[in-house]
């Protein structure tokens, strides 16, 4: 039976406290956490509780239980707003939310939550040394939301729902003005409009050709050096040709 097991089973709160502290320093998160879990209640309302609460939250953070960690860090900053660890706790709480954010193709409730929490942190501690990292995390999360909207719009293009794709890309360009995928969005919006026009029923064709050319011009204007331009130019030529048959007819 190891010392740890003995202490874990003993009733000696002070010994547990000491050992938890040692283990924490030695970065034995799991063992420290188990001890802390036992004694946290006993120190409630006492001065040691501040340190214990922080250590407890930190252990769950290090163990990867981010839901729990964020919850306890949030509680810590709530109870001890004056603590010197409050800033670190606030940041780690927000970062815990960041870790909970799932892949872009699933529901983004946690992502939005994480952005809000990080934003709150930045507002509360504008001088913080964590500021750079916080901003980096927000950027990463923002990209997730952007990617999600982009992929949905692109899927409409893929499943031949061109009208839906154009609308979804229009919304995307409006809602993500600084998007990384803007160039791609411009191109795929044009691609959808091109297909919609080329495959169109006769009585709507002229309007759709014009719309598509409009989207081509928008792409060219926004990204004169776009890697998509070569393909787009060819498509535009075809659109112009088809449009000419309308103008010569009338």
């Amino acid at each position: 039976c190891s010392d740890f097991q003995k202490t874990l089973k003993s009733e000696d709160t002070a010994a547990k406290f000491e050992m938890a502290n040692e283990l924490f320093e030695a970065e034995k998160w799991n063992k420290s956490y188990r001890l802390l879990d036992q004694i946290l209640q006993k120190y409630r309302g006492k001065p040691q509780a501040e340190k214990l609460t922080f250590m407890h939250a930190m252990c769950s953070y290090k163990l990867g239980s981010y839901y729990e960690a964020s919850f306890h860090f949030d509680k810590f900053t709530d109870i001890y707003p004056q603590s010197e660890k409050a800033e670190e706790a606030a940041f780690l709480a927000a970062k815990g939310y960041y870790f909970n954010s799932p892949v872009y193709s699933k529901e983004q409730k946690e992502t939005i939550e994480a952005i809000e929490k990080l934003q709150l942190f930045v507002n509360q501690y504008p001088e913080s040394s964590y500021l750079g990292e916080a901003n980096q995390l927000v950027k990463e999360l923002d990209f997730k939301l952007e990617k999600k909207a982009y992929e949905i719009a692109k899927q409409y293009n893929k499943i031949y729902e061109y009208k839906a794709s154009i609308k979804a890309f229009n919304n995307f360009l409006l809602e993500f003005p600084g998007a990384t995928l803007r160039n791609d969005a411009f191109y795929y919006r044009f691609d959808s409009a091109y297909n919609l026009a080329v495959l169109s029923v006769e009585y709507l064709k002229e309007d759709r050709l014009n719309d598509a050319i409009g989207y081509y011009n928008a792409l060219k204007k926004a990204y004169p050096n776009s890697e998509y331009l070569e393909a787009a130019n060819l498509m535009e030529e075809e659109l112009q040709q088809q449009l000419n048959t309308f103008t010569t007819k009338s």
Partner: protein
Amino acid sequence: QVEGGETYLIKEISVTGNTNFSEQTIIAYSKLRKDEEIQVGGEKIANAVKTLWKSNLFSSIDVYVVNIDGNTADLEIHLSDLPELKDLTIEGVKKGKKDEIIDENKLKPGQKVTENLIATTKNYLTSKYRKKGFLNTDVRISTSEVIDSVEKERVDMRILIDKGEKVKIKSINFEGNEIMSDKKLRKAMKNTKQKKFIRFLKRSKYIEDDFREDLVSVVDYYKENGYRDARIISDSISYLNEKNISLDIKVEEGEKYTFGKISFIGNTIYSDRQLSNLLGIKEGDTYNGVELRERIADETNPDANDITNAYQNFGYMFSTINPVEVSAEGNVIDMEIRISEGKPAYFNHVTVVGNDVTNDHVIYRELRTRPGELYRKADIIRTIRELGQLGYFDAQQIVPDIKNPNPVDGTLDVEYSLVEQGSSQIQLQGGYGGGGFIGTLGLSFNNFAIKDIFKKDAYKPVPRGDGQSLALRLQASQFFQTYSFSFSEPWYGGKKPFQLSSSISHSRQFLYDNTTGRADKSKSFNITGLTLGVSTRLSEPDDYFMLSQAISYQHYDLQNYNTGLFTFGDGTSNNLSYTVGLSRSDLSVDPIYPTGGSNFSVSAKFSFPYSLVNGVDYKALKEDREDQNEIISDYRANQNPTLQETAAFNDANARVSEIDQQRFNWLEFYKIKFKADWYQSLTKKLVLRPSMEFGFLGAYNNDRGVIPFERFFVGGDGLANYSLDGREVVQLRGYPNQSLSSQDGGSIYSKFSLELRYPITLGAQAKIYALSFLEAGTSVNDFKDFDPFKLNRSAGFGLRIFMPAFGLLGIDFGHAFDNLPDGTAPKKWETHFIIGQQF
């Protein structure tokens, strides 16, 4: 003296008053700190008081500023604990009820006794007994302080319940009704009934709320019959004695009205004629306000063919329709249906939330509502139905949320809120059956993500979210082993609903050794199979149709496997076939418990007609076989065969298996199947499911004959066990398994069934429904014997339980009405255990 507004630095915080909590705890909880600046009447103190109040532990909380010394001061928190409940006495009800009362009102010792607790308990008890018909219930609650050595403040509580006599409605009397009889009006009252000798289901209790509702029903009843001025003038209760009351209702009927001219105003999309057809009310009809409302917008049925839906399904989300009475001269009411069509609405954002397992692309491709497209209510309803059919989400909890409707721009957003449900099933079972231990391991994942199988993080517990299905099944006993694996992707390539599926299986069966009672490993029958299939959704005649095609190959290998079934004990047989099927399914909504729609499928499976091209003279073979059979039957009839005759018999047997081996080396057949079932809601819950099915297995070359595989086995629970020889096991309850077909299986069958289902619960954790059925079917080997009216009939009842982790489990009790094909009478009642979904 403190005025308010001054700021002090806190020196000490103390806690006084009558409390059992430690000083430290209360200070920590209050969030007030030493050496902190506070303002008298400021936020910090207010917050501290608020937080302490919220704990629901104190009856009074005060914070005082004391010992002011310059700009420093001490704080004193003065509190008293709420009294705790010690003993509770309840009088006036049975002992069993007491525990219920304690539970429901949380009257456990130690509970803090607040005024609110006393008031809610009293209200709860009064209304509880009133609802049960104890109209005169009187509840009294008193508390008394406990004086003992414990320092805590505690009280005893005494609850006195006087239920009085159960009150019944002796009679309901109407006054002022000349046109409608008392009887009819009483009938219109759905929940309040007068005492009657034979009433069982609805008791003649008086419940105030129900009675109020019923008075509205009475007025509605008049309105439905043209008396739109009808009203209740007064209602009263009179106590006949302790147990009986009578209700007296005075009505004023008013005059009967009829509809006059009905004109439409503001309609541009639909013509007056179209609208009046939809309305279905003509000039001269009895005035019926209820019907008029329903024809304009039927609240009870979102799919109804009413005027509102006509607009809603044409993009006019913002349309409003108001019927207005323009004149009522001579009891003839002229109506104007005023329509404001508004702008057609288009979807702006279409989003999905709640998918924490399933990937976006799997969901968005199924949505019938897309950005930029015209709003149609029917599309939303269909989307809900189809998302439910996927099986990844709880069909009962799919909610479309219309957001940001903007009548000016003509746009709206819709957000589908989903709740993921377990779509994987694990089956691990061991049991005795077929003369030995059978172990089964079945895994089926219906929302698999094969692209993630090498990602460690994705194993929660298996990679999920791409809508693929993967199933693995291993089953073994000493007599057989089967292994099967299948995989399918519903949208191969991601561009169109083009399902690709594949499966591999292998099975081994051993014969029973009579001497040892164990499996004889030297006598085996092996089947190895491979199937590849594709299916696509069609757009014509409508997009509920699916066309599916499959190629399958099976290899049968018999080793010394002599049974009655096979004439060749040693040999092989190959089955290469092509299947094409057309099906249509529009079940709504829940795949486990459909309440509407139908399923229909027709399929043909056939092999290449080898006999047309391979030049084998099957006619000669057939004649040869008949000759040999003659020798065999002669020998069997012979009492004292000579040695010579025995030798000839053995030769004949060998020749028959040689011929059969030649007939079945490559299986030549075609198989046609047809299946249809419908689901029809009879009432809000009751669902009727009629179904019918036929199957026919034929040969291109009658001399070559119908193959011994791919046959139909009718009767029993319909569970296909380990046999992989292409057999179709058809459920027909009330009879033993496979008892209605000949031993080798029939080549023709038909079945009809009528099932009535009633849901007990359709929650996400478990869906349970009860059913009763009437079934009839038959199976024969030759078309000549097929008589569609000579059926084996049965009836019975059962129960199904569906739990996401276990799949469908059920039990049915069936009663057979007809003799088995061999003339014997079946057991009267047959019990069937059902595992897995029957489609």
